[in-house]
């Protein structure tokens, strides 16, 4: 096998050196009746030429990857500057382990410290961790954290939270004795409504809301924060489309206590759903309740600045079952990609990109709403996603759009909301050229 340095002969010599007569003897401690006495039934080895041909053929079947697309809903097609992939492909970064040995891991550590800082800047909060698996698991961890902070067991979740974030949270908290209560969304505005919710009382640990929410509507976070704080609960804000940080008032500035977000928007390929990266930030006073890793400043004996993993006493390898979370391996390289994205685009580029997204989405929304039979059911301000109500069943309509016009027009909401057969969610980013939007509009008119 070409990845194994020692040749068969060398291995024989080494076997002899350790006093063994055969490879089988290496496994003498495994009871005979536990050994697999046949070759694995997996394919024979492929050469590079064959392997690439195989995967190219598989990739070619992913026809959706080659079409103009207006899919969002938690995964966004943004432009990634070329240098990101070049830099994360430096083996110094991608083949290193978690930086347990700071003297030989300063590159990773400094980059994570920069990542933590940028997450604070974007979210408007004070402290951020060194990454979570993704937004969905971050929401779940935020709920668990709210329970640790408040020692309360009831959590009110917006009905306009991404359905998959909700499902994941349900799984996580099922056995933790936490009750998830549902807050409705307003059928006109598309925003979460708390008014009259029986859940708003002193036993509430947190309110969880997404903004822009699953329907693309920007929530009134200030009002939600006030409502939460009024009963001593935390406000957890989830952000699926992190590019919105470039234009929208930060959740921290609106009073959020925990902000979680999906970092995929920042230069990370769609890659059929992962790997992405969860951003997780909170207020300083809750720092010791954070799940996951933290990098902090340290000094060596000569006073030189360096960075280390710190506050490890929260973590599983020290606190074991009492840890703030079980997370160990997180999404380091993706966090690095996001850090490079945010560096390259920078203060101006993130804002400009966000504005382009919003402008293009506004244009698309306007053009679609002018079409006979199409309406936009929700009135709240939006960033770059919006729901469209078609005159026909959306699923079949989108299929025809794909087949006849070679456009993926959006996501039929019936996937998650069977009661909304004609609605679909459209997302527009800076990568959608006007000609694509116009083609979408023309296609919608025809199908």
């Amino acid at each position, binding site marked *: 096998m070409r990845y194994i340095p020692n040749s068969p002969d060398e291995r024989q010599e*080494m076997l002899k*050196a350790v006093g063994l007569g055969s490879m089988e003897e290496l496994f003498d401690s495994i009871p005979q009746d536990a050994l697999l006495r046949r070759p694995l039934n997996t394919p024979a080895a492929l050469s590079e030429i064959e392997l690439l041909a195989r995967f190219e053929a598989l990739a070619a079947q992913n026809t959706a990857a080659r079409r103009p697309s207006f899919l969002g809903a938690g995964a966004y097609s943004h432009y990634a500057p070329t240098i990101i992939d070049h830099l994360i492909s430096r083996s110094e970064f991608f083949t290193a382990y978690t930086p347990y040995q700071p003297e030989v891991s300063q590159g990773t550590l400094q980059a994570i410290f920069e990542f933590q800082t940028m997450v604070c800047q974007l979210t408007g909060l004070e402290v951020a961790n060194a990454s979570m698996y993704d937004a969905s698991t971050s929401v779940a961890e935020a709920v668990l954290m709210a329970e640790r902070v408040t020692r309360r067991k009831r959590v009110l979740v917006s009905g306009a939270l991404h359905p998959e974030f909700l499902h994941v949270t349900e799984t996580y908290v099922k056995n933790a004795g936490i009750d998830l209560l549902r807050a409705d969304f307003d059928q006109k505005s598309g925003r979460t409504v708390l008014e009259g919710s029986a859940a708003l009382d002193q036993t509430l640990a947190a309110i969880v809301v997404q903004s822009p929410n699953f329907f693309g509507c920007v929530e009134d976070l200030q009002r939600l924060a006030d409502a939460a704080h009024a009963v001593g609960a935390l406000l957890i804000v989830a952000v699926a489309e992190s590019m919105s*940080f470039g234009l929208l008032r930060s959740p921290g500035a609106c009073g959020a206590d925990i902000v979680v977000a999906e970092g995929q928007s920042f230069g990370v390929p769609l890659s059929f759903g992962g790997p992405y990266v969860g951003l997780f930030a909170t207020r300083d006073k809750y720092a010791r309740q954070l799940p996951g890793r933290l990098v902090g400043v340290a000094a060596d004996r000569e006073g030189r600045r360096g960075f280390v993993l710190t506050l490890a006493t929260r973590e599983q390898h020290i606190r074991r079952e009492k840890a703030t979370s079980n997370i160990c391996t997180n999404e380091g390289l993706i966090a690095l990609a996001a850090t490079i994205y*945010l560096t390259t685009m920078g203060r101006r580029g993130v804002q400009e990109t966000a504005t382009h997204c919003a402008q293009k989405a506004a244009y698309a929304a306007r053009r679609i709403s002018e079409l006979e039979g199409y309406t936009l059911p929700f009135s709240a301000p939006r960033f770059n996603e919006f729901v469209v109500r078609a005159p026909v069943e959306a699923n079949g309509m989108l299929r025809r759009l794909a087949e006849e016009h070679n456009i993926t027009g959006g996501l039929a909401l019936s996937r998650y909301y069977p009661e909304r057969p004609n609605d679909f969610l459209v997302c527009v980013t800076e990568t959608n050229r006007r000609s694509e939007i116009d083609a979408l509009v023309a296609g919608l008119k025809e199908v």
Partner: protein
Amino acid sequence: MKSTPKATPHVTQNEALIFERSHPGRRGYMLPALDVDETPLDELLPAELRRDDDLEGMPELSEVDAVRHFTRISTWNYHIDLGMYPLGSCTMKYNSRLNERVARIPGFANLHPLAPEEDAQGALEVIYELQQHLAEITGLPGVSLQPAAGAHGEMTGIMMIRAFLDARDGVSEGNRPRRKVMLIPDSAHGTNPASANLSGYTVKTVRSTPEGLTDLDALRELCAGGDVAGLMLTNPNTVGIFERNIKEICRIIHDAGGLVYMDGANMNALVGIARPGDMGVDVIHLNLHKTFSTPHGGGGPGSGPCCCTKELEPFLPVPRVVREGELFRFNYDEPRSIGRVKAFYGNFGMHLRALAYILTHGHDGLREATEAAVLNARYIAQGLADTFDKPFDSPPMHEVVFTDKRQSRKGVHTLDIAKRLIDYGFHPMTIYFPLIVQGAMLIEPTESVGRQELQQFIDAMKSIAREALEEPDTVLNAPHTTRIGRLDEAAAARKPVLRWKPAAEASAA
């Protein structure tokens, strides 16, 4: 300050934080001109919903600044391509460039997770095929690729056990499990108890024998209570020894009405040789980022698939990828499933790499890799046996644990030995894990190291042992060859500084 020959203002060795490098007005990006009619900003979004801090503090830099910054700091990392990275339990094997290339094929990289199934058949086939191979490798037919890392897989697996037992036994009041106890050996990785806790289990510790194995008597005793939901076992265990009583262990647990969870972090010692499913294990997670060489990326991404018995299969997370004739599709209709553990379908980019690993190795190569990894560990075990204290006699599998017992008499401890290893050009081994071994040095060479470099490692360790005797200060003050020396971690934790702040703010704080 006295000028030393080694010039301290070395620019590439003193790269500042990106924020300190920022200058207003620099830019590293360009967008195409906006090609739609512009909506006035206030119409787009009311002012009170818009950011008003102008993202102050975020970097403003040219592309060149960015490239130099990250290139410079990258050179401060050790990495697999530089040399041996013998972190025990972490399985730092070669990360094939071919796999990286596969993951970047546009038909995969640009595929949206919510694309219609019929337009993403290639991706579904990748998931399906990888599931098949992992089932064959573990001997456990039910597979979900959804978990994002090992700990996530553990959580998933334990939730499945919980769901199974709840379905079988019913639940106590307040949704408490009937069987409250999850048994975990004292040598286990910290994620194990943390994951068990997430499922509402109380952790009880199983002690190890002086041989480094699970104590069967202790196990039986613990099981006698009748409230055991299961056991989380790592095999080979975290001291690198195969639990040769594995079948008996499984029997004890099963007889007590519990299930056996295996932490598959060390599966690289077994691939092609033996299968957990054949030993009585009910559910296992694999670390694709260990056994199947997907890169660690300085702390992720990983991927932690769960594999389980037919009996547990209905409890796996949804959606599951199934095949119907020539078509692959997602199946959400599994009423007994524990539900989703992650949006979408797991870290698909890692699935691609792991499948490429399996196909590149072939069945022969998979076994060959296991043999070579174990042989390399054995070679080190033998090479260092005279120099360092080896707490367990049994020949190790893929990793071997030593201690600092002999060196600590001279005041040189595991930490010092590890740091000194850096000066010899090696990444240190895992230290102080597992907790049951005092001053543990857990060494896992993997199959990706040749004999010559193994020997250099052995020689370096012996040389350090000699230094510990003859010139302990050299070891105690190591490393000497890095940009910075040992950092004061205690001080860092006492007064944590977890983010950069502008100079004014920082000094005010």
